[in-house]
């Protein structure tokens, strides 16, 4: 909720600042800037660099602010850490009242600290001490500490002068105190708004973890082994799917018999998400490498088949006619007209297939694998190693994005005529 509001504020503020700043700049004079109709003309919309950068910075700033990161100057309030105390008032069996102080030491989790000193007290009440980890709560038991605490009629009646009874909650200087039904005090120091590292580690923790795993590896394999094996599976599965799927698609686009034979299969397999095949593939081929390659092969196969088929049906009949009129044979028409004409479609298919394969391989590794990006994060999640999980997700995203960019570069380079026929 709060995060959403802050994010919205950042969006509006950056947008406003940009508009104001833009007014002061000199107007540009390229073609787009001279268009008067821009709203609704999609061609005038291109991603605003400034907005993209601010967007990314905002994401990291929010992440840092809510995790107490050192790289971000402003933080939302964190959990209380340090020494504090509260005073309680108790009544004993004979009706006397006395006060004592409980000294609390709230420390970062994982750190070993000494108990604070507690020697004073008045009457039967004795000062007490407790240490509590940040984000945690601790029990304070005056009844075991005070003289006569075990006798009937002993009870704590107030915290810092505010009266308390079983099942009631009272605030003290740095948190809440709830009395259990048995009279024990459950102390909950303020948690603030920051996330605990086991839920969301700070950006630098993730980076440190990345460095550490890049150096030492994870679960018997180096980071490159994990990522590389995922990538290798994708590339191999995609490659196999393409060398079967593309000719199959051509055959389906060129022959009635092939179209008739394979149409039911392709049309049936097309809507089946590859993830739904994981259980069957595991039953048939086990959790080893073979099963994963076959899964990715299937994921790529239908997409590439359909892309090649669409590429063939997309060829303008006048081009084919022209080629025949120029004396081309069937093979020459296939090689010089149909194949190049279908390349843009095939590239589009390849981009989709690569994306699907990358998603599928991670999912398959989540289910079962010895190594791989998916295996790394699912394994880490079992041990609450959230920083590894987040690092893995970011790496998976970056690699997926990288694959798409590479495909787009290859596309621009290999089929520059795309969409200009």
């Amino acid at each position: 909720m709060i995060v959403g509001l802050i994010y919205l504020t950042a969006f509006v503020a950056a947008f406003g600042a940009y508009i104001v700043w833009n007014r002061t700049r000199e107007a540009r004079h390229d073609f787009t800037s001279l268009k008067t109709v821009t709203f609704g003309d999609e061609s005038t919309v291109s991603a605003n660099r400034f907005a993209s950068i601010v967007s990314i910075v905002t994401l990291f700033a929010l992440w840092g602010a809510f995790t107490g990161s050192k790289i971000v100057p402003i933080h939302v309030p964190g959990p209380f850490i340090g020494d504090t105390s509260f005073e309680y008032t108790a009544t004993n069996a004979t009706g006397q009242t006395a006060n004592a102080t409980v000294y609390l030491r709230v420390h970062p989790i994982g750190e070993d600290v000494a108990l604070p000193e507690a020697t004073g007290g008045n009457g039967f009440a004795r000062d007490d001490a407790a240490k509590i980890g940040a984000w945690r709560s601790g029990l304070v038991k005056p009844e075991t500490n005070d003289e006569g605490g075990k006798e009937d009629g002993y009870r704590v009646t107030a915290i810092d002068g505010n009266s308390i009874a079983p099942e009631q909650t009272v605030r003290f200087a740095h948190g809440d105190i709830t009395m259990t039904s048995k009279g024990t005090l459950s102390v909950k120091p303020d948690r603030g708004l920051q996330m605990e590292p086991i839920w969301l580690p700070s950006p630098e923790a993730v980076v440190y973890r990345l460095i550490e795993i890049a150096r030492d590896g994870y679960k018997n394999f180096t980071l490159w082994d994990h990522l590389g094996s995922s990538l290798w599976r994708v590339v191999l599965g995609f490659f196999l799917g393409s060398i079967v799927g593309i000719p199959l698609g051509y055959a389906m686009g060129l022959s009635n018999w092939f179209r008739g034979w394979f149409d039911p299969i392709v049309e049936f397999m097309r809507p089946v998400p590859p993830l739904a095949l994981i259980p069957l593939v595991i039953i048939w081929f086990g959790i080893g490498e073979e099963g994963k390659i076959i899964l990715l092969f299937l994921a790529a196969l239908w997409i590439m088949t359909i892309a090649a088929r669409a590429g063939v049906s997309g060829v303008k009949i006048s081009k084919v006619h022209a080629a025949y009129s120029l004396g081309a044979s069937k093979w020459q028409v296939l090689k010089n007209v149909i194949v190049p004409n279908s390349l843009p479609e095939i590239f589009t298919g390849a981009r989709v297939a690569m994306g699907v394969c990358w998603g599928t391989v991670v999912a398959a590794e989540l289910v079962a694998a010895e190594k791989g990006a998916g295996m790394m994060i699912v394994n880490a999640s079992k041990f609450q190693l959230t920083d590894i999980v987040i690092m893995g997700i970011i790496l998976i995203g970056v690699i997926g994005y990288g694959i798409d960019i590479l495909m787009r570069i290859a596309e621009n380079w290999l089929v520059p005529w795309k969409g200009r026929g």
Partner: protein
Amino acid sequence: MGSLKIDRISMRFDLPGGGAVQALKDVSLELNKGELLSVLGPSGCGKTTLLNIVAGFLAPTEGEILLNGKRVKGPGPERGMVFQQGALFEWMNVRKNISFGPDMAHKPAVETARKVDELLKIVGLKDFGDKMIYELSGGMQQRVALARCLANDPDVILMDEPLGALDALTREKMQGLVLKLWKETGKTIILITHSVEEALLLGERLLVMAPRPGRIHREYNLPFADLGVSQDLRMVKKEREFGERREEILTMIWDMEEEIMGRQEDVA
């Protein structure tokens, strides 16, 4: 020698929902080598169908096409085709497009390259050989299409509204080019057009077709194409006879169009 004979061609398209369209009925025609025939007619009268049959893309339901005495059974390099638009190969540059025919026939590369150079000069694209198709304007693309067709040295050139998508000015220039190429190469040409002026200017012979069923309505022999070779096309258009013919044919086609519309209203 070198004649194209269209012998009692009929074409029926069976429609999927039953019924049929008689696109052509009993069309006969003979063209001698080096003749330029333009074909006019209201939309849907079967012009494209006729051309596709001559090109060999369609087999007629009745009749046959003979080129130099040989029966046409399918497309072939002796009948070149220039399409209205979009039939160039955009994955090849201009040069590769023009040399497509010779390349497919595995002609020697040096000879082909010389031919391409020559054609590029003729169609006025000397410096555009290495450009990609999508870098050219529509008029330039049609000049490439013409050159590609000529590079293959066909006996007959078939053109289906080759200039239909061009602006008036470019179109006029291209008309001059077609005339020039026709005279220089002596090719037999069939040219389909929607423009009466173009048909009159370019056609040595002119065929007016009538619809439902598609048939030959009238045939003319015209002097303008010969005039146009030596004279400015604009001057030819000013001739009195040109104007008379234009009016006559326009009226004829208008009447046919109106008849079609009337008939459709009757049905409705």
